[in-house]
């Protein structure tokens, strides 16, 4: 495993997918995966295949919807878009992540104690 890439925390992928769909509108799985890779600047260790587990989970919770359609270059693909409850969930989760990351920043900013031995 490359140690230069980030391993995704449980649940973070779901949030990324929601945010991507909220920002970009309807997208197919490949599009979502590519978008996350681009945004992360290839910082994320992501097998594109894993995105689908997240998609089916979100879909079952009613936060995104899916429909077969045709891509720009005339290929059949399944398009996902965020739903209203999805947007609500996204804002809740985003707020949560922001609080968590602020907290983590503060904790990590504590000065390290001198080693007295």
């Amino acid at each position, binding site marked *: 495993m490359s140690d230069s890439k980030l391993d995704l925390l449980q649940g973070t992928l779901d949030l990324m997918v929601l945010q991507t769909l909220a920002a970009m509108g309807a997208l*197919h799985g490949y*599009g979502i995966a590519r978008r996350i890779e681009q945004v992360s600047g290839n910082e994320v260790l992501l097998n*594109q*295949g894993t995105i689908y587990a997240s998609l089916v989970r979100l879909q079952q*919770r*009613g936060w995104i919807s899916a429909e077969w359609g045709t*891509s720009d270059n005339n290929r059949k693909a*399944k398009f996902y878009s965020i739903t209203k409850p999805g947007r609500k969930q996204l804002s809740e989760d985003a707020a949560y992540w922001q609080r968590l990351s602020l907290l983590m920043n503060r904790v990590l900013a504590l000065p390290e104690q001198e080693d007295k031995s």
Partner: protein
Amino acid sequence: MIDRLRQSLQRIASFFRRAQLDQDFDSEMASHLELAIEENLRSGMSPAEARRQALIQFGGTQQAKENHRDSRGIPWLESLLQDLRFALRMLRKSPSFTAVAVLTLGLCIGANTAIFSVVDALIIRPLTYPDAGRLVTIHEIIPKLSSFAPLVPVNAVHFREWQKNARSFDQLVLLGGRSFTLTGTGDAQRIPGARVSSNVFSMLGVKPQLGRSFRADEDVPGHDQVVVISHPLWVSRFNANPDVIGKRIVLGGDSYEIIGVLPEDFHFPRLSQLYAMTVSEEHPEIWKPFALRDDELDAVGDFNFACIARLRPGVSISQAVSELNLLQADFVRQLGANVELHATLIPLQDQITGRSRASLELLLAAAAAVLLIGCVNIANLLLTQAVTRRNEMAIRSAIGADAARLTRQVFVESLLLSTLGGLCGIVVAYSAMRVILTNVPIDLPRMDEVHLNGWMLLFTLGVSTATGLLFATLPAWYIARIDPLATMRSSTRSATSATKVSRLRSLLVSLETALSVTCLIAGGLLLHSFINVLSVDTGFEARQLVTVDLNLPDTRYSDLTTKNTFLSALLERTRALPGVSASGISSKLPLSGEGGNNLVLAEGVDLPYEERPLADIRNVSPDYLTAIGIPLRKGRVFGESDRTRQVALVSALAAERIWPGQDVIGKRFRLGGIDSPLNEIVGVVGDVRAVSLNKSPSLTIYVPYWQRFRNDVSLIVKTVGDPAVVSSEIRGLIRESDPEIPVSAFQTMQGIVMSSVAPRRFQTTLVLLFAGAAALLAGLGIYGIVSYSTSQQTNEIGIRMALGAQRPTIARLVFGQALFPVGAGLLGGVVLSLGLRRVLSSFLFGINPADPATILGVICFLGLVAAAAIYFPLRRAIKISPMSALRYE
């Protein structure tokens, strides 16, 4: 929250659309890859490179599929289904194993379910009356009489006192047996009935289906000509006609108005179940108000009735008992009588089922033991299978299955097996219940309330699951400990696990041997007791005797003279019939309940009331003793010439107890108070076991039938010819003399004897059946284990033979190995049964629960079974030639 719920529902939905969703995901993946390849091509890759990169970026497609499935469906259920499919395949692959296991389980579980459903209906489920937990029966206690009768029936005067003063009860009800002769419509018919306090039905919480129940003002002599009838009687005798309400019927010559019909699902206990003593009363079909007569209000005599009461809410039994005892003490003080009087309560449920409870628990224990032996056998078979499948398990473990998954596989297989067994058990239970219900001796109460129901199915399910888990633990334990590397490296087992497994097996053999020894000893002791009861000296001769019960309607036979005229004539005409060698009448036949119990006061002895001996008084004709074969020991039997004198016969025991060491002929005594007439003893006769075969004879006094007035008599006839012919002739005779006398079914005395021991026979048969099953299962189990272990030892045997060991040496070796756990089990079983001897002794008659002959016999029998089970596999093992033995594996 709603989102989660939604997700769960979706997951369940996806579970059922697996194939479609898989397909959908396949196309989605294909489209994903195409999109990726296209983009890669656009960035200038060669087609092959574009495809390779797309696949790398995607990651494992199989893995993505698995993840997709896991996150959308119910992964544990899916793998469980997989296990189940696999388990089914395994069972199909070894059909004989499956059949043996399922049948064994089916029989064991079925037997348990059947017995349990009887236990459930009789003991566990409360009576069907509302709030039945507060219903109790009341009995009186006369401490001085307690050696003879610990509890006595209720005295009507005492009942009135309680009714007036007791605060512990909401309601109290007095009951007494009373048969009715229904005439007027069709044949005269004898119908069992009861006299009851007017509030009996409201206390039991039942409303008549038609009409009304009794009013309080009907509970008075003179106003009591009303009856409530049971649903079955309404259907059988009145064609379920709703117009019967208000109709008048003739009972025993008196006219009664039918005021109510009880609902179909209402069960009234048999009166005999409510009494503390042995009385023969049946399920009442007709109820009339009690209407106590003045002549029944004797404060110190006449303990004749049953009493049911409903406790006030919140009052405990002990509170109610102490209140009753205070009332009894007050009452005795008021009377100024020198007698101690107490009372006690028994919950109605216990009162009704008490006598059958222990017997049913014994049966349940025997059935459970057989089930346990069955489980041991199957555990063994599964353990054997686990050992032979260790390679498969090792491979599965090597390619990533964890121990939990492998053991789960074992549990799934066992549970599948036990569930199949349970299904089979339901069928067995259903047929067994039918056999039990049709053959059950009448002594078991509430038998009509027993049937298969939801609880039974739940019980079966519970038992099957429990057994499945039980017999899976051993193989699961074995499989969880498989070391894949060691297992696959060598085809033979590692030495340590082999000894552990075989030690475990020996333990199982010991366990099942011990259990079946215990069952067999219990069965043997019961059988011995049953034979003892049958061969006990009854004091009478039951062969060639036919009996019939007569009830003389009291309106037309209201005095001694008319009754005596009728009975003398009937006896005369019966005696004259061809095929009759003797005929007599008695107020009570042997084994049909206690006669009239009365206190005896010998002339010249002034004993206080409570110290007078109590005797069973029977009114008989002179020929009765000849007919039934009770021998005359001394003096003479009374005869026609004694009609004008007060005479009596006493049993040898009565003579010995009441007049110890004296010549009783010519001695006189009184029955009842000091002013009652003196009876002179003219003879002493043999003792008879008249109440029950396993109860020693009681003090008995025979008084000529013409001295005492009774409307219920039994005619007994000794035949020389065919009893059936004689019976029909006697029936004709009675009909001719008085067509309004109801004639019961004729019974042979032997039939009465047999039905008196029917409960014991039923219990003995079932326990023996279970013991036989236990022995068979134990034999099969030992056979299975020995044949497996000898087949595992084939190699060793071959080596020993090749090295020069003789066949007998090897046979001794193998036999010894197998016999050791059996011996330990035999010993364990004997110890167990000795430990249970106190429990067992209450079921036994005339035999020591540690009877050495029975124990020795059982050991020999089971030893032989075990020897046979060992011999056959052993013979196969040593017949094998050393060469082929060495080539084995």
